[in-house]
Every structure is written in structure tokens, then in C-alpha cells.
């Protein structure tokens, strides 16, 4: 076994690899960019080497610096993780040329599988079923148009060198094709340095299933069963599970055989994943092979009990496969959910900022693989994934229920997350029934995208939090900096009545809280809605008053809130603009209210012609003074590794561009001066 390895990655996967290495007595070297100097992956390793500035292309993608770091620190092998250089054949070759071992397949295999078109040819020859498509050298729009017509719309454009949904576009009609080709080429060039595309039939109701394989590079290839990663947003997986639900045993057997055959065709070495489209009936089609550890590998680990990173290290060190096919068993079901810093309600746009608070479910509830911690910034430089939450149980339904509970304990403040969205996904009846497909999110979108509506449990949790802090404020050591201390707080040994403002969807509400004389643990709340102080003073409050009662019991950081006989666990964390209330079934933000005016604290102006997030301008897509239709793209920017189009809100013309290509822009920065045409 190696004495020391270098981990050429960051975030959760680097932390996760370091954990196994440490358990095996292998020393680890981290690499980091300027943005990651104090990141958890740096601390998880025994040594750390700076490899460059924040942008990935100047650090985590700089193969020569990473190899030099390995040579300098005496690392015998390099684990590439996923993403970055993990599927870069030149990197694998250069690592070996420098006398190090690349923990992964041979450069030859990566090259063969890295080109989607070559991979498809190879698999066709090996008898693995593939989808109809075009993957020729002619990259003209005319050819793509002709081929798309031949295959039949809808079609999928993919970067030949791609993966992870980058450089991938669904095209429904001929008129969208030219734009989609241009943008997929740009993204392909930016992400992989290769703008070549291929086109294939888009299978409408498809499932995404994949086989985890492992080879020793000497002819032996085994599978560790399959995963279902059908539930995706923007072609990016967000919930994955093992085994695949509702798959007939004969189809499953063919799938697993096809996976092993694909691995055998290239004499595969190390961990690999063979991805297939499954039409829900009898057919599976080869899509691509990922020559690395997958993000979703933990679900396989939980059903097989195998540590895939340990296998990677053993095979790379020349040991045989730890288990033969007959000895690899599966047990139960496992589900993984990816927690992203993003806004599901705003087309999953990344949410940038500082994580001021971050808490995960305890270890007995879920496995959590994370590479960020409270106090850290989610930057536009890298993938905004915060953590993976993985659970298992004897059966799938129980695993999904455990996932729903575990997600309720993921509490992040400072950025928006997809946690509530994932919770609705995991508990959705169709999900429970195993009725998954790549169109799951579009199909159930009305039930999945719900605004965070306050409920009386949330109001009660907030009022309880205020009351508790008001009580603490009476303590001499407590800094009396809360606006609430100036209001009537709860006072010991006095008839307790307090009044607080609560930010409600339709305006500020006044909550009068009294102790129930018959039950000192219960509180009665009179809620007067639309009751700003100014309106109240003017006698113009037009709100209505209703009442509810709650009981609260503190257990450490958690509070149990009971309303109408229903009990929910709650936690209240202060945010920059107010408070975030975490309940079992939802997360609700309450803005801080100026008690005098009753106005909301946050008055974020929203304009479609400002930068939605920090990023770099990649193209100016309109001409100054030339009329454009509503929805026309004006500016393209790249942020969080994704392209974003800034579009004309209405018909009009660009009066002036305030930015140039290559400019770094901050969130909310004005990009375009736009005039509507009268």
C-alpha cells in the first residue's frame, strides 16, 4: 500500500478520500487555491500545497502544478476525485510519466471513453445497446440541423468531451437549434477545452440508471449493482438511489451484464460507472462511461458495505480486487440527496454568500459527506454543493422516510439551499411509488415548487425565540442589542404579555402573546395582520385579528412546538436580514422589521438587467440601438460554472452596455441600460 497520496481535488470528495486514506494509514497531501486556504479539505489532509489562484483553470486544472506538488511532497499516487482532472487522459499520462501512480484507469481508457462518440462506437462493437444519434466530424449547424431532422425532435446536444450536464442542451424544434449549438459549444469550450458536439435522440420518459463497475486492469471486471439517478434538474442529478426501483429482474440482469461487458471491452482498471438510459420498459441504451468515482458512489457503498475509495487505493497499488462477483452482496436500499447552495424557485440559480450557520443531522440519522463548514464562503469559483446526505434502510420506502427526516436536520443560513425542495421530492407519492424519470421535476413541478409559506408552528417558534431572548436580555451579561428589548418583554413574576412584530407575506403583523393562566407552559397569540405601526397610529390598519395557541419545550438547540395538538421540532437561527425558522416540514424566513415604521428590513430591488450573481461576462449578444424582442438574449455571463442569459424583459433596445466581455461583475451590478420602445 502507498505511504502517501496526493488528492487532486477539493470539497467533500477530497475530505471523503482523506478519511479512507487515514483509516488505511496512508498519509495525504491536499492541494488548494487561494480561495480554499482554510477549507476543510486542507485540514483533512496531513500536508497542503498551494497550487494557484482561485479560478479552477489556474489551480485545480493545472496538471503540471499538481504533479509537481506530488513530486515535491513524495506522494506515490494521485487520486483525482471527480470533476477537474479526473477524466483528463493527458493528466493521467503525465502523472505516470512523472513516476507517480494515477488512481484510476489507464490514459488510453479515459481517452476512449472521454469522447462520447468513440465510446459509443466501441460499445456498439462490443454488443452494448446504444441510442440513435449523430457523432460525426462535421460540426456545422447545417449538418446538425439535417441530422436532428433525420433522428427526429426532440434531440439532445452534448459536448463530445462533456459530463455532468455541462454543454448539454435539449432542443425541441429546428428554430432553437442554432442558439443551442452556439451555447453548448461555448460551454463545452469553457468546461472541457473542446467545443465538439454530438447529437442524439432525446428519450422522452426515460430513466437514468448506471452500473458501478470495478476492474483490476488484468481482465477481471465485477459490478457492484446499479444506481438510479433519474431525478435531475437541468441535467444534473440531485437524488440518487440504489438499487433502481421497479425494474424487472430480467432487465436488471441485462443491465448489469451490459455494464460488465462495457468494462471488459476496455479491460477496465479501477472504479467506473456505465450510464444507461432506461425507457421504463424492456430497453436500456448505453449513454456514456465515467472513468472515475461518481458523486453518488455512497449509495452503492451503503447497500454493499464496500468502501469504494479503499478498493481504488488497493487496485491502484497492484492488489487484486478485494471481492469476486459472487462475494459482492447487496442489502436494503440507499438514497442520496445533494444539498446545493441554490434557489430552486429561481431556476436553481446558485446562491452565493457566506454560510453563517451550518448544521447536519447526527451520524445515527444519516451519513453526511461535506466539504464546507460554517464561516466559509460559497464562491462563484466552484460547484455550489454543500453536502451529500445519504441514508439506508431495509427497504426503499423506509429509506425515503429517513431521508425526509434527515433533510429536516440540514440547517444552513447565509445562502439559500434546495433542502425544502429535496424534502418535497423525497416524500412525494410518485417518488415513494418508485415512479421516477428524468422528467420527474417537470411532471410534478406544481407540487414541488412551493413558496415557503409561514404556518403557526413557524410563527410560534419565532415568538418563542423572541421571548427566550427577551428573558435572557434581563440577565446582566446579555448585550441588550435586540430591538425587541425595547418592547415589552416577558418579565418574571409579572403578568406576562409581550408584543412583537412578525413579517408576514402580506405585510407586518402584530403578535400579542399572553400566558394561558390555566397552563403556564401554553401561550396564546393574537395575530393582527397588515398592521404597520404607521397605519396603527393613523388608525388605518385594515388587518384582521385571529388567535392561536402554542406550547414550546426547549431541548438544547431544538425546540418542540405544539400547535393544535401537532408537534414539530423547530430551530431558529438569526440571519443577516432576520430569522430563519427550521421546521420538520419547511423552512421559513422572517424579515427583521423596523418596529417604528413596520417596514420590512430587506428591500432588495430586482431588475432583470443586473447580474443575478457574481460572475464573468462572456458575450454581449445584442447591438446598441437595435430593436430586440422580449426574451432576446442581451448578455451572456458565466457564473458558478454555468452560463446564464440576461434577457430583454420586454421589447426594446439596448441604450448602452455597462460591461465588456471578460468583466468580473458583482451580484446586482448593472449590466445593460435598456429602453423600451414607445
Amino acid at each position, binding site marked *: 500500500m502507498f505511504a502517501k497520496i496526493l488528492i487532486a481535488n477539493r470539497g467533500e470528495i477530497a475530505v471523503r478520500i482523506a478519511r479512507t486514506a487515514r483509516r488505511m494509514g496512508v498519509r495525504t497531501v491536499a*492541494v488548494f487555491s*487561494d*480561495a*480554499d*486556504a*482554510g*477549507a476543510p479539505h*486542507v*485540514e483533512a489532509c*496531513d*500536508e*497542503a*500545497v*498551494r*497550487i*494557484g*489562484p*482561485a*479560478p479552477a483553470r*489556474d489551480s485545480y486544472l*493545472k496538471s*503540471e*502544478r*499538481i504533479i*509537481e*506538488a506530488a513530486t*515535491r*511532497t513524495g506522494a506515490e499516487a494521485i487520486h483525482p476525485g471527480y470533476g477537474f482532472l479526473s477524466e483528463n487522459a493527458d493528466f493521467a499520462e503525465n502523472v505516470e510519466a512523472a513516476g507517480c501512480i494515477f488512481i484510476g484507469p489507464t490514459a488510453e481508457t479515459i481517452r476512449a471513453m472521454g469522447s462520447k462518440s468513440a465510446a459509443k462506437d466501441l460499445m456498439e462493437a462490443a454488443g452494448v445497446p446504444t441510442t440513435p444519434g449523430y457523432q460525426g466530424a462535421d460540426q456545422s449547424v447545417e449538418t446538425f440541423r439535417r441530422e436532428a431532422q433525420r433522428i427526429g425532435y426532440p434531440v439532445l446536444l452534448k459536448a463530445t468531451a462533456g459530463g455532468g450536464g455541462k454543454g448539454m442542451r435539449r432542443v425541441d424544434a429546428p428554430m432553437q437549434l442554432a442558439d443551442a449549438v452556439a451555447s453548448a459549444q461555448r460551454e463545452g469550450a469553457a468546461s472541457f477545452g473542446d467545443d465538439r458536439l454530438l447529437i442524439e435522440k432525446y428519450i422522452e420518459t426515460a430513466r437514468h440508471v448506471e452500473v458501478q463497475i470495478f476492474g483490476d486492469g488484468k481482465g477481471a471486471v465485477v459490478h457492484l449493482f446499479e444506481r438510479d439517478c433519474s431525478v435531475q434538474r437541468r441535467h444534473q442529478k440531485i437524488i440518487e438511489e440504489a438499487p433502481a426501483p421497479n425494474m424487472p429482474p430480467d432487465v436488471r440482469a441485462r443491465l448489469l451484464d451490459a455494464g460488465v461487458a462495457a468494462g471488459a471491452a476496455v479491460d477496465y482498471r479501477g472504479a467506473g460507472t456505465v450510464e444507461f438510459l432506461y425507457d421504463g420498459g424492456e430497453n436500456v441504451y448505453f449513454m456514456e462511461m465515467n472513468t472515475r468515482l461518481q458523486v453518488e458512489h455512497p449509495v452503492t457503498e451503503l447497500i454493499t458495505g464496500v468502501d469504494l475509495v479503499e478498493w481504488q487505493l488497493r487496485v491502484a497499488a497492484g492488489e487484486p480486487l478485494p471481492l469476486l462477483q459472487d462475494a459482492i452482496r447487496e442489502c436494503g436500499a440507499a438514497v442520496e440527496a445533494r444539498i446545493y447552495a441554490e434557489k430552486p424557485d429561481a431556476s436553481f440559480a446558485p446562491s452565493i454568500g457566506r454560510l453563517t450557520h451550518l448544521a447536519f443531522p447526527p451520524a445515527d440519522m444519516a451519513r453526511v459527506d461535506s466539504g464546507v463548514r460554517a*464561516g*466559509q*464562503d460559497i*464562491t462563484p*469559483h466552484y460547484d455550489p454543493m454543500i453536502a451529500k446526505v445519504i441514508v439506508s434502510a431495509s427497504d426503499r420506502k423506509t429509506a425515503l422516510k429517513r431521508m425526509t427526516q434527515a433533510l429536516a436536520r440540514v440547517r444552513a443560513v447565509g445562502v439559500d439551499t434546495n433542502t425544502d425542495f429535496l424534502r418535497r421530492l423525497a416524500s412525494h407519492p410518485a417518488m415513494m411509488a418508485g415512479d421516477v424519470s428524468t422528467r420527474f421535476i417537470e411532471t410534478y413541478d406544481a407540487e414541488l415548487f412551493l413558496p415557503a409559506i409561514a404556518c403557526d408552528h413557524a410563527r410560534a417558534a419565532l415568538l418563542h425565540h423572541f421571548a427566550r431572548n427577551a428573558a435572557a436580555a434581563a440577565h446582566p451579561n446579555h448585550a441588550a442589542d435586540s430591538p425587541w428589548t425595547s418592547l415589552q418583554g416577558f418579565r418574571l413574576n409579572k403578568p406576562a404579555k409581550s408584543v412583537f412584530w412578525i413579517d408576514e407575506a402580506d405585510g407586518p403583523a402584530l403578535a400579542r402573546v399572553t400566558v394561558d393562566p390555566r397552563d403556564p407552559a401554553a401561550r396564546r397569540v393574537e395575530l393582527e395582520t397588515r398592521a404597520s405601526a404607521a397605519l396603527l397610529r393613523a388608525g388605518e390598519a385594515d388587518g384582521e385579528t385571529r388567535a392561536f395557541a402554542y406550547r414550546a419545550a426547549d431541548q438544547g438547540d431544538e425546540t418542540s412546538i405544539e400547535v393544535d395538538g401537532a408537534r414539530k421540532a423547530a430551530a431558529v437561527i438569526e440571519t443577516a436580514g432576520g430569522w430563519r425558522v427550521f421546521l420538520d416540514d419547511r423552512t421559513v424566513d422572517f424579515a427583521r422589521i423596523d418596529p417604528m415604521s413596520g417596514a420590512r428590513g430587506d428591500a432588495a430591488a430586482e431588475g432583470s438587467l443586473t447580474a443575478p450573481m457574481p460572475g*464573468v461576462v462572456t458575450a454581449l449578444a445584442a447591438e446598441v440601438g437595435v430593436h430586440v424582442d422580449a426574451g432576446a438574449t442581451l448578455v451572456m455571463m458565466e457564473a458558478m460554472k454555468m452560463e446564464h442569459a440576461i434577457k430583454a424583459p420586454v421589447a426594446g433596445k439596448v441604450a448602452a452596455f455597462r460591461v465588456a466581455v*471578460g*468583466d*468580473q461583475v458583482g451580484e446586482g451590478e448593472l449590466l445593460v441600460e435598456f429602453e423600451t420602445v414607445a
Partner: protein
Amino acid sequence: MDAKTRIVSHADRPQALEVVRAAFEQDLEAQLVERMWTDGSIIAECVTHADGRIVSYAAISPATIAFGSEAVPALALAPVAVAPESQRNGFGEQVVRATIDAAFARHPGRLMFVLGDPAYYRRFDFRPAAAVGYQWEGGDVGDAFQVRSKDRASAPGIMAAAGSDAERRSIVRYCNAFSIFRQETP
């Protein structure tokens, strides 16, 4: 001698300025501190009290590590001042340690830079920054420009990964308050 270090309060400011002025034997560094106060560009600042007066002062302000159009936030330790009559008593070290801890408590993920005598700053785990690829915006000052991170500075930690190719150098810019030094030398 009983010396206590604490975060600078408003009441400490006039005396702290006096210490800075006396230590540098000129007014520029004191102007820098005043400018940082008015700009609000202080991440952490501490004073050490001994014999009922302030004997040392240190401040940390925001800096940026720029590479092309990309920039990431960092920290800059400056100025560090010990009253002339109180020097060589460890008051400098005491105030610097407290200030570094306070700054990293707020920003654990950032790199911290200092311009100064390597023989002195080595004890705080600072290492020459040029070897790791950082250059001070004011030009090449050899090993005087130094860097550390919160936790790994003393380990083999931050080390150079590649040679000295200028292409990968990141420029470290101090906050606007430091422009008063530039005005001095046209």
C-alpha cells in the same frame, strides 16, 4: 509585569494612535490607522495595556488576492506598533497573537499577509510569500512579504508547488487606506 491585551475600544483610540506615532517616529502610520477607522476597514485590532497605559497596538485589514480579473479576499497585518520605551518586553508578540486570533476567528478561510522582518514574523508562522506565488502590489520586496493560513502554516503546509514562473503569480492588494503611502512617493 502584568500586561492585558484586548480589542480596541473607542476610548483606547487616542492613546493607541500615540503609540503608533511614537513607534514609527513619523505620522504616516497613525494616519493610516485613522483612515482605516473612518473607512471601517478594520477586521481586528488589539491593544496591550501594561502599567495602566497602552504599550502596543496591532491591526488587521482586508486585502485582496488578485489574479487577472478574479479576486479573493484575504487579510493584511499592519501596522504593528510598540511604544519605544516598552520595546523588548514581548508586548508586540502578545498583541500580534491576539489580533491574528481575532481576525482568523472571523475569517478562518482566508490567507493573511504581512510586510516585515522575516526573522520576527516567522514566530507567528509567517513564511515568504513569493515562494508560494504571491507578490505584494508594491513590487518585489524579497522575503519581507510573508503569508500564513489559519491552521496549516506551521506544518509543511503552504509550500511552493512550482518554480517561479511569473504567470501564476497572484498580486496582493491592501485596502484603500494604504494609498496614503503611495501619495508620499509620487
